[in-house]
């Protein structure tokens, strides 16, 4: 059983539940006391206190220990309805009951504390592991373009007279490519930190899905030139009221990802349609798809495919997921049966049909 869900009980609730359970068990035992004898009742009450100790804080547990001891003494030990205990044996039992109940309470709570500490330690270790992954991929992703820029600039600076025009041109192209890569990675990091700090508040406004998709494609022209992108947007789609900028970045990410990772002669298709009050955008490709055992993990922060050769910080998809979720939507990845990956975005949205057949 999951104890943390019980610990979410407020202190008052914990007291009430503790007292009630001791009372209910006592009443039950009271009716059965002729059958089972008062010493067995002590054991039953002890079990009750132990169960309470499993889930609740120390104070309600102590209270139930004391309460149950008193109840046992008052209602069950011979010479019922007095607190007096006549036989030495019963007195001993009463004291033992009391001590066992208390020790039990304290012990279970100690164990719980240790468990909590252990899980905190584990969490810390996970964070450390995450950071080292981050440093590894980041230092690689940032240092590579930086080295390229420094090296190429250095060459141009110091050996300008020895370099052929063609070499110079190549070096300058390398600088330009590397700086764009750097810009992209820094942009990713900034987006990630915006997400982490809860800074992303969608600013919803009316937009045209066609315009969005072509805006993204237009911007990606140089990256996707070799791989054709088909657009299949349903006719007469209404306008949606969502954050254009966030959607833009998500689509940019997905299409850029697909274009850089699929083999030559593969095709990317972007579809959009309206499903009840939801905008659905699908980005699919005819590439290799994702390894089945990694599909669940690709949206994790800093996760990179084991086979990944193209680099990347492993941030793009987790940012995309964060952006879509900030608008109340979902994003999922599947492999198509005939090969290729298919990303499906679904976001609930206000709709406006004003664009269909308006004349002024």
């Amino acid at each position, binding site marked *: 059983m999951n104890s943390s869900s019980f610990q979410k009980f407020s202190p008052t609730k914990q007291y009430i539940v503790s007292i009630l359970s001791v009372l209910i068990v006592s009443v039950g035992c009271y009716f059965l006391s002729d059958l089972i004898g008062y010493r067995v009742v002590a054991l039953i009450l002890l079990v009750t206190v132990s169960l309470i100790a499993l889930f609740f804080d120390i104070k309600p547990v102590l209270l139930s220990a004391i309460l149950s001891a008193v109840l046992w003494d008052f209602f069950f030990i011979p010479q019922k309805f007095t607190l007096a205990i006549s036989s030495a044996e019963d007195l001993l039992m009463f004291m033992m009951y009391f001590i066992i109940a208390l020790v039990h309470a304290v012990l279970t709570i100690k164990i719980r504390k240790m468990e909590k500490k252990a899980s905190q330690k584990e969490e810390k270790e996970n964070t450390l592991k995450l950071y080292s992954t981050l440093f590894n991929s980041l230092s690689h992703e940032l240092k590579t373009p930086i080295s390229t820029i420094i090296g190429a600039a250095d060459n141009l600076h110091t050996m300008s007279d020895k370099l052929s025009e063609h070499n110079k041109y190549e070096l300058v192209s390398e600088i330009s490519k590397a*700086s764009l890569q750097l*810009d992209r990675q820094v*942009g990713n990091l*900034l987006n990630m930190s915006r997400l982490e700090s809860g800074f992303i508040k969608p600013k919803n*406004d*009316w*937009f*045209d899905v*066609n*315009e969005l998709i*072509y*805006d993204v494609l*237009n911007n990606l022209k140089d990256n996707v030139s070799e791989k054709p992108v088909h*657009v299949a947007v349903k006719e007469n789609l209404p*306008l949606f009221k969502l954050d*254009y*900028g966030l959607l*833009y970045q998500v689509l940019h990410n997905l299409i850029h990802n697909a274009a850089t990772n699929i083999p030559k002669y593969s095709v990317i298709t972007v579809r959009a349609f309206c499903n009840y009050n939801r905008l659905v955008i699908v980005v699919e490709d005819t590439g290799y798809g994702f390894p089945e055992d990694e599909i669940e993990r690709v949206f994790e922060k800093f996760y990179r495919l084991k086979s990944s050769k193209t680099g990347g910080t492993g941030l793009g998809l987790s940012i995309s997921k964060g952006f879509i979720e900030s608008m109340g939507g979902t994003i999922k990845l599947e492999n198509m049966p005939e090969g290729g990956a298919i990303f499906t975005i679904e976001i609930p949205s206000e709709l*406006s049909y*004003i*664009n269909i057949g*308006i*004349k*002024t």
Partner: protein
Amino acid sequence: MKKSDILVIDDEPQIRKLLEITLKTNDFDVIEAATAKEGLLKAKNNFPDLILLDLGLPDESGHEVLKKLREWYTKPVIILSVQSGEEDIIKALENGANDYLVKPFRTGELIARIRSSLRGSLKGIISYEGAKNELEIDLNLRIVKKNNELIKLTATEYDLLALFVKNEGRVLTHQYLLREIWGPGYLNQSQYLRVFIAQLRKKIETEPNQPEYILTESRVGYRFIAKINL
């Protein structure tokens, strides 16, 4: 012809150097200022033809500088800003900036923006030669021709197009367009704008989805861009 002089107000020496080289290579004279104070002073003393203003200055925010400039300076101001979100850009455009560029920007883009900002407002009959189709607009007779054929525009569509043409090369914010065409009561009715942009594109563009005249400026607004046929 006298060279146009451009005042660069930016606190980063590297950026100033880059701008200086870029602008001088393109036949502009350059005046530099590293702080808001220095910038305002040099603007007053030199009355440059155009000002490039960085929003992140050390002594005063670029927005404040823009406000002070706009009390008397009537020539174009182009905002330079780091990737910080559209609010900044929209705010600057609403406060009288003519255009904006987000750092890092392509220098070719910078020169194009400067040239179109320096060009005065267009009048009379203007014809554009796009890669896909020609466009001719007669602002006096309110006539629009695509590939020499008259096209029918509704009054609102025409007003929208004329506004774009008069501000050729400049980004017009959603708010500005809604206010100018529909009036101040329509600032929240951006769905009208989307609809009319789509309709206008269908009429004047060859491929409405890949427009060459009315370009989308993500989250900020639209920009009408065209090569003028003289």
